[in-house]
């Protein structure tokens, strides 16, 4: 009889132990939320974009910008959350009359985290690092326009350009100024920002802490921890269970509903620059025919697509230009309206009254497979048969981007101001309109932003009229935070997440 009871006791013991363990966890959790602990000014941010390394020129990915841009590293200029370019490490600048040289005076008394004073030599080295062989910087082509750099004294840098470039300051705003003394920036840092790198636990978190030697206004919190998740629902669970304070960018619409109408959380619907594209290979038949592209555009009920993917979030666009770019034209949303009869007649005019068949190279990650299925059913109504070919992100790069071995594809394009790619006939989609090429080039060499804006507006209208691609919708940019946290950026422009103004009240 005694022996028979023993296993039962074991089970009971195990249960009691797990309850005990859970209880102690409960007590700890409660303490954390009381605000009494010294950690209360640490802001916890949840993200899906873990950096692969810490360098923005060595393939660190968008997570690097999110955690380090503006926080640990600074540029000569700063791209604000509403898209303006302001002085940062540059105290002032002058542009030559021909637009071919920029003289920048550096702010005085700026130190790197290592203690070294910032000089013009560091600026020169930082730019050379971006264009060096082996650099993976996304901005490499913008800086190839720099012919030479002079450093007449420690505080003066002069950039000489091959061609006038009105976006030059904008590009400088995304270039980190680093103390290039031979360290491995993939695992270490030496920037001038308000935070220093604290710890990076690969696969889980990256923390930065307030730096006392900062030249400007100090950070309003004592530090920030970016927690990385691989799964969108794990990320929202972390916010629901109080482990994190902010989700920097919601990627799954399913995650939003549980925070709606709950006073504990604030949902911020910011301005996104991420566009979902059905990109044609405009070089090859039948997509070299404008009417075919326009027919496809008009056959797709984009409002229905957006709603089925993002519910009430996100917005429709009619071109590559998001509303935050200066050359946005709201009238273009309906440049190619949803109209199946129009689609059919355009298709007939193009010589395909009975439709045709094409292959759609579809990246395997969300939302592309869903979008592909939707397009397949929409296009079937005008007689076009879509064969969906699922490919990995890596294969997309080889097959579509590098080898241009495709007919049509789906892709999200994340950057602001990227309408200029339509002025490059060598880009993967191969759109080639000499007027647009000329306008994009003239816009870049414009003397005033007004002139630049006018030229790019024209580009914007032309590509919409010719349906260079189908711009399906603009992603929403959603930041969800607990309501006692404020001061965070809501637009997340260029994947930045400036954290120094975030305040947590108890």
């Amino acid at each position: 009889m005694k022996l028979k009871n023993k296993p039962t006791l074991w089970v009971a013991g195990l249960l009691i132990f797990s309850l005990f363990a859970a209880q102690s966890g409960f007590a700890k959790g409660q303490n954390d939320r009381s605000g009494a602990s010294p950690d209360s000014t640490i802001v916890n941010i949840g993200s899906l974009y873990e950096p692969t390394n810490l360098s923005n020129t060595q393939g660190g990915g968008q997570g690097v910008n999110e955690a380090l841009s503006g926080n640990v590293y600074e540029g000569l200029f700063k791209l604000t959350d509403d898209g303006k370019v302001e002085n940062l490490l540059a105290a002032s600048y002058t542009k030559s009359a021909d637009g071919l040289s920029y003289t920048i005076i550096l702010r005085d008394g700026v130190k790197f985290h290592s203690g070294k004073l910032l000089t013009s030599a560091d600026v020169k080295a930082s730019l050379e690092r971006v264009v060096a062989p082996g650099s993976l910087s996304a901005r490499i082509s913008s800086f190839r326009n720099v012919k030479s750099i002079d450093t007449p004294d420690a505080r003066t840098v002069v950039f000489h350009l091959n061609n006038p470039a009105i976006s030059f300051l904008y590009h400088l705003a995304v270039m980190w100024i680093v103390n290039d003394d031979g360290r491995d920036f993939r695992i270490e840092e030496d920037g001038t920002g308000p935070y220093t790198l604290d710890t990076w636990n690969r696969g889980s978190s990256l923390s930065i802490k307030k730096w006392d030697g900062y030249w400007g206004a100090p950070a309003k919190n004592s530090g920030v921890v970016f927690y990385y998740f691989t799964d969108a629902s794990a990320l929202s669970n972390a916010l629901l269970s109080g482990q994190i304070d902010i989700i920097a960018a919601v990627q799954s619409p399913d995650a939003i509903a549980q925070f709606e109408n709950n006073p504990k959380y604030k949902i911020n619907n910011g301005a996104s620059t991420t566009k979902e594209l059905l990109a044609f290979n405009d070089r090859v038949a039948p997509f070299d025919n404008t009417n075919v592209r326009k027919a496809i555009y008009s056959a797709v009920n984009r409002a229905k697509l957006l709603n089925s993917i993002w519910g009430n979030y996100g917005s429709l666009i009619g071109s590559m230009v998001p509303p935050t770019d200066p050359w946005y034209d709201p009238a273009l949303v309906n440049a190619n309206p949803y109209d199946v009869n129009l689609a059919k007649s355009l298709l007939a005019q193009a010589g395909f009254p009975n439709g045709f068949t094409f292959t759609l190279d579809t990246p395997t990650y969300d939302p592309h497979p869903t979008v592909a299925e939707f397009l397949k059913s929409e296009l079937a109504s005008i007689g076009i048969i879509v064969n969906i070919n699922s490919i990995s992100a890596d294969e997309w790069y080889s097959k579509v981007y590098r080898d241009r071995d495709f007919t049509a594809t789906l892709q999200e394009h994340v950057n602001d101001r990227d309408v200029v790619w339509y002025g490059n006939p060598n880009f993967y989609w191969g759109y080639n309109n000499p007027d647009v090429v000329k306008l994009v080039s003239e816009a870049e060499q414009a003397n005033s932003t007004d002139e630049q804006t006018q030229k790019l507006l024209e580009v914007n209208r032309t590509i919409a009229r010719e349906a260079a691609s189908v711009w399906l919708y603009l992603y929403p940019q959603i930041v969800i935070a607990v309501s006692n946290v404020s001061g965070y950026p809501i637009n997340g422009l260029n994947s930045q997440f400036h954290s120094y103004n975030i305040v947590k009240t108890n």
Partner: protein
Amino acid sequence: MINYLLHRAFFLLVSFIAALLVIFILLRLLPGDPANALLPSDATAEQIMEARAKVGSDQSLGRQFVQWFARVTHGDFGTSLVSGIPVGPEVASRLRITVPLTILSFLISLVAASAIGFIAAYKNGTWYAAVLTVFSQTVIAIPAFWVGIIFVWLFALRLNILPSGGWPNGGWSNFGKAVEALILPLITIVFVMTASLSRYIRSSVLNILDSGYIRTSRSLGFSQGRSFLLHGIRNAYVPVVSILGIELSSTLLGAVVVENIFSLPGLGSMLTKAIAQHDYPAIQGILLTTTFLVLVIGFFADVLQRILDPRLRNQNQRGG
């Protein structure tokens, strides 16, 4: 026994090399080119050639394998193509989560499954033995990720007594938080694991209770319990040990799935990410490590079985 150990160790080595070859070839069958990770978005043809030469994807498969094998035998797992950071130390740091999680959940499951299996067998015919049996059969059918989701919902979101996932900043140096972070993954694995182990233990105990030597022992006047303690337990675990080996291996692989649900920076999350990024050196490093662990576990399970049951030893010696 020595003969057997040598024979078994040789078999271990051969299987390991065969596994390496399979891993290597299967990875090369994936579409895409690992050199992509080294290329900027506007790469020129020369840059592409350079990158291919750098990662070795321009060479023949055989050559690539030989080079890789030579490096691995020197303990060099290579450098991640994506991050440019060595793979070996990262795998080692990930093991600091995966190994404790696996071993601890295995041990707890073993204890719990022994209790459940024993009651279910010893009390065969009673209603609670039936409940235990039905329970374990049902749980086996439930995938671990689903159990994980339910536990997160219950313990983290409804009761709010445990973190829903993630790993503390600072890792094991923040010991209390680290333990907290492991509790839900642990009970998820234990839940699933206990169910399947208890079935094996139950049927093994049932066999023993039916056996001649227990009956003999009973006829000599020992109680059922005493007979079982004296003669039963050791015998009951002989068939179970080989199952335990397999189960320990599957716990290790199951931890890989569970780590993803709970966003733990173990081998599992590293593997999924590496596969998505086509990071050959990282994938190979992880698969090599897990394959090695699984083979070694199998080796020890075999040896342990022979220690527990002298008959197997003799059999082998006669045969070998």
